């Protein structure tokens, strides 16, 4: 039993993608892949320490009413856990210190950035240095995007990948940095494993290939350990060829490109954490 990879997806208060993220973890080989309502964590019945891989799924936490994931971040930081146990933010801090993996997709990425978990170039994990805000077009957009990867990035999720194709579905996906120095630090450390690109996988600032106007075409960032990773596109939405928008006209592999990210994560856990 101790050799099982255990993946957790936190659900509730407006997450929408928890089922398909859990399924992606399962398909990628995670023996345990559970979507658990945050009420279970706040009741103290489920603890992060029992898992290796924490997934923060897409959705609209609290309706994104105070800005994407803002109220959700506030909950993780301040909501009491029954019985006076460690707050969820503290549990997450320990989880990171234990060398475990966290991936945030879309609203989960927004949540990580606004809690300071990403990009955390200085690895302090509590200081927000970047944000995700309204798309330049001013609207929600559902569209598939080409993404260039960075082979020099420490990101364990994109290891060995050369360019992938995934859908974005968001209204607040424009990546913004606090200062030029922040961007420089991120770039220097290769903390940008994914950039919006044209069909030839060259990064672009042009709409709609870059659907939101993100600076430096940033679609996803990782922390310096490469174990924390967030991205606006949805890897869990492309785990099988029939999810590709052109599957009826192109020759595609059975497994979708998004699954690769989960496989890398599970393989890393099997090699390093079990």
């Amino acid at each position, binding site marked *: 039993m101790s050799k099982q990879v255990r993946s957790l997806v936190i659900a509730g208060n407006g997450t929408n993608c928890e089922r398909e993220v859990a399924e992606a973890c399962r398909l990628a080989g995670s023996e345990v892949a559970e979507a658990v309502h945050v009420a279970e964590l706040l009741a103290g019945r489920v603890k992060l320490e029992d898992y290796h891989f924490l997934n923060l799924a897409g*959705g609209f936490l609290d309706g994104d009413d105070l800005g994407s994931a803002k109220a959700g971040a506030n909950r993780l930081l301040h909501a009491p856990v029954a019985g006076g146990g460690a707050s969820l933010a503290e549990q997450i801090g320990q989880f990171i210190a234990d060398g475990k993996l966290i991936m945030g997709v879309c609203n989960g990425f927004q949540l990580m950035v606004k809690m300071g978990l990403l990009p955390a170039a200085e690895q302090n994990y509590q200081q927000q240095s970047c944000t995700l805000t309204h798309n330049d077009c*001013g609207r929600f957009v*559902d569209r598939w995007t080409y993404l260039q990867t960075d082979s020099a990035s420490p990101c364990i999720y994109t290891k060995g990948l050369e360019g992938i194709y995934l859908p974005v*579905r968001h209204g607040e996906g424009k990546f913004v940095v606090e200062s030029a120095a922040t961007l420089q630090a991120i770039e220097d450390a290769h903390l940008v494993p994914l950039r919006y690109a044209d069909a030839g996988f060259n990064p672009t600032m042009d709409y709609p290939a870059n659907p939101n106007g993100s600076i430096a075409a940033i679609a996803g960032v990782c922390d310096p350990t490469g174990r924390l990773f967030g991205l606006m596109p949805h890897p869990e939405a492309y785990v099988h060829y029939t999810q590709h928008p052109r599957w009826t006209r192109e020759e595609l592999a059975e497994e979708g490109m998004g699954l690769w990210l989960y496989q890398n994560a599970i393989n890393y856990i099997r090699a390093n954490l079990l």
Partner: protein
Amino acid sequence: MPCRIVVGLKDGVRDARGERVKNEIRQHLGLDLDRVRTLDVYTLDAELSPAEIDAAAKGPLSDPVIQNVAVDRPLAEDFDVLIEVGFRPGVTDNIGRTAREAIQYLTGRPFAAGEAVYTSVQYLLTGAIDKAAAEQLVSGFLANGLIQRWTILTRDELDPAKGVPVCIPRVDATAEPRVQKMDLNVTDDALLQISRDGMLALNLEEMKTLQSYSNDPQVQAKRRENGLGAELTDVELEALAQTWSEHCKHKIFAAKIDYEDESGNKETIDSLFKTYIVGATRDIRQGLGKDDFCLSVFKDNAGVIRFNDDWSMVFKVETHNSPSALDPYGGALTGIVGCNRDGYGTGMGARLIFNTDVFCFASPFYDKPLPPRLLHPRRIFEGVVEGVEHGGNKSGIPTINGSIQFDERFAGKPLVYCGTASIMPATLNGQPCHEKQVQVGDHIIMTGGRIGKDGIHGATFSSEELHEGSPVTAVQIGDPITQRRMFDFLIIARDRGLYNSITDNGAGGLSSSVGEMAEDTGGLEMHLDRAPLKYPGLQPWEILISEAQERMTLAVPDESLAAFMQLAAEMGVEATDLGLFTDSGYYHCLYAGETVCYLDMEFLHEGVPQMQIPAKWELKGHQEPSLSGRDLQADLLGLLGRLNICSKESVVRRYDHEVQAATIVKPLTGVVNDGPSDAAVYRPLFDSFEGIVTAHGICPSYSDIDTYHMMACAIDEALRNYVSVGGNIEHVAGLDNFCWCDPVESERTPDGAYKAAQLVRANKALYDYCVAFGVPLISGKDSMKNDYQIGETKISIPPTVLFSVIGKIEDVRKAVTMDVKTPGDLVYLLGATADELGGSEYYRMCGELGANVPQVDAKKAFKLYQTLNRAQEQGLLRSCHDLSDGGLAVSLAEKAFAGGFGIRADLDNIVAEAGLSDEALLFSESQSRLAVTLKPENRSAFEVLFADCDSALIGVVTAETSLVLSRGDRQLIAASNDQNKEAWQAPLREL
């Protein structure tokens, strides 16, 4: 001491919202401002220390990377006019609710009663604008006076120290609860006056039925035992009016109709609903015998059919027209989240899997003067689209199918159809999940949101035309997150077996939901004073009929009550015990221990008198026009740019159509993901490739000739879209949503008998074609008062039926999309073409109506669709696209540009009636036709399969990217894909 927290963007951060507003002001009002910036304002009306306020301001309420924040001082500078828009008292403020929760987490203590956070938005306008123009701007565009209030200040008027004065939109709650008694022993005129004054929407006969009920000595004796006099209370009158409303009781569909056809033949129809809708399903189910796949029809919030041995699928389509006319955003948002509650609240509960949306609007480019109280169609368009966007996206439900129809008459009332499908296990804890039964002694539990004055009289209001006195309280704003939390909770409660029955609170609020559930046991006892309120001051009758959103009513047995309540508390969902289901035979409500309503259940549910409606059909003598010398190529481009045909991509992309990762055929398809799919394919289970297919048909333009054929064409259109992607024609169910103009003859509706005859004819076709296709009807809805009447102006919508279908594809990997795939593939046209341009998009473009409305041969069509299924199963088809608005030419143009290759076709080869004009060949809207492509090596297999169907090889897919259509040597059209696609994409690209 209330305070204001103002949040604005730092210098150099792009204000996308401000830019969008600036553009929209230019487009809507022709006002070119230099700059528009936006600020968010939170007004905190709560006991908080300065440190707590500061922590809230710098914590959850602002983003330190891009925003500045100020407490009790303005951030606004460098502007000409400032407009601040907030909500009126009592209007749902979702952001305020979230801010309040966030502050409670921060401080660790709950807000006291009456404490709240209110939100508003500041617009800083720079440019040539004065206060008067700003007033016009805000009332005509930025805000909706029904739900919002505003402050306008010039730069000189803004206090530089304190900013905009604090405004607290708290509901004034001074009224004491009071029950009024109504004396119904008055003149007929006075009875009608009571109905009008109370927004009861009851006619004289119905009022007189109430009068004689209240005078019945036996009734009076029972009332006395419970402390009530002979006079009905306002609570009782309201409960009766809701239950008897057209909206809830469908009195027109239940009426006795005396129908006379064009030759003077007369018949009496005792309920259209029972005769044609229930009748069709009954006859089809009998015919299907052991293959019957219907599980629950007409009796629940939605229809349920079999998916496989382990799962059942649920589908419901609703309309939310009247509220959307007044507040397009709130009305449409409420429409979709309300339909979600129907989908969830069917049987014991079902997980929501997808939404569908169909809208009918006037042109957003409408440029004539508008009658009073009507919003510009463009505002309706944008508000409705945004409302459904927020409702669907935030709820995590993909919007996978829909369309938009345009007709000038929809300026009088837009139609907003919202559909929701859900999936439930075939059995739950050993019982069929699609069934439920309240038990005597079960607790009446209300969960979710609280009750306010929102949505009072929604049911009766939508049972009338839009008029001067239409109430503003009828408008509600949905709250997807509160609802999402409730569903997350309820599905766990369902699986743990904690309740016996569930239904949603929609029209009529508690009065309808509890009343309907109590039919299982034959009585109820409900304590209205126990209901949780948003603010004090509601009258007992208001509590009973409020349509405040996000509420479900459940029947929870004694033994699981504690577990149910504990789970609710843990998951942050409010649940309240309002009383008991009984077998007393009475609908019994109390307030503070006093009986305020005591109605015989049978009278309440069965007492409404049947209406009697005359219907007389007449032929209007329509003529075919004579057209000649048309430029056919220009006509094709014109058609592609028609609002009813052009690309809706700008809307589709605003809807998340892929969340849940199960949308296998998406709304947009083709080589660059922008071709128009015919239908959607959805894979609901991770461990099976079985799929659900959904599609729809809607053809209001044919109603101007004959609603019989309008209905037939809508059914055929839905089915041919459905089979086009691979839906199984032998496992599909239909839903009918009628939207009519008032068909009851009266002073205000002198042509009622004709409109009623149109209704009868549509129903006859519904029966005839559903039976012929073997498609059972499982649910539906009607909205019968889609008229606008103020002063001398009356606008009636064209009779419109949305026919939606849901069914099955055995293997989603066999689905077929509409785009051509490879040069060299053969192009076939399936089905026969006739001179059927009557009511067509082509004639409309030419300013004509015509007479030859398309007619459906169901027998031939069914055979064709079955054969198409065989071809799809055998993998013979590379693409398949239906022919609808604009006919063959439009269909082929779409196939070509979606696929990125050309088509060359000779139209002399098609199966057609002899002597057809070029126009008819190209643009006729004859039904039951599809254009398919296949690899040349599959030609013989395909031709053998279709030997008994109308099928013709008409051309080939070409590498050259253009559409070339000819008749023999004579070329009719040669247009590049780029040209066609541009014409098709341009009209709504910027919306």
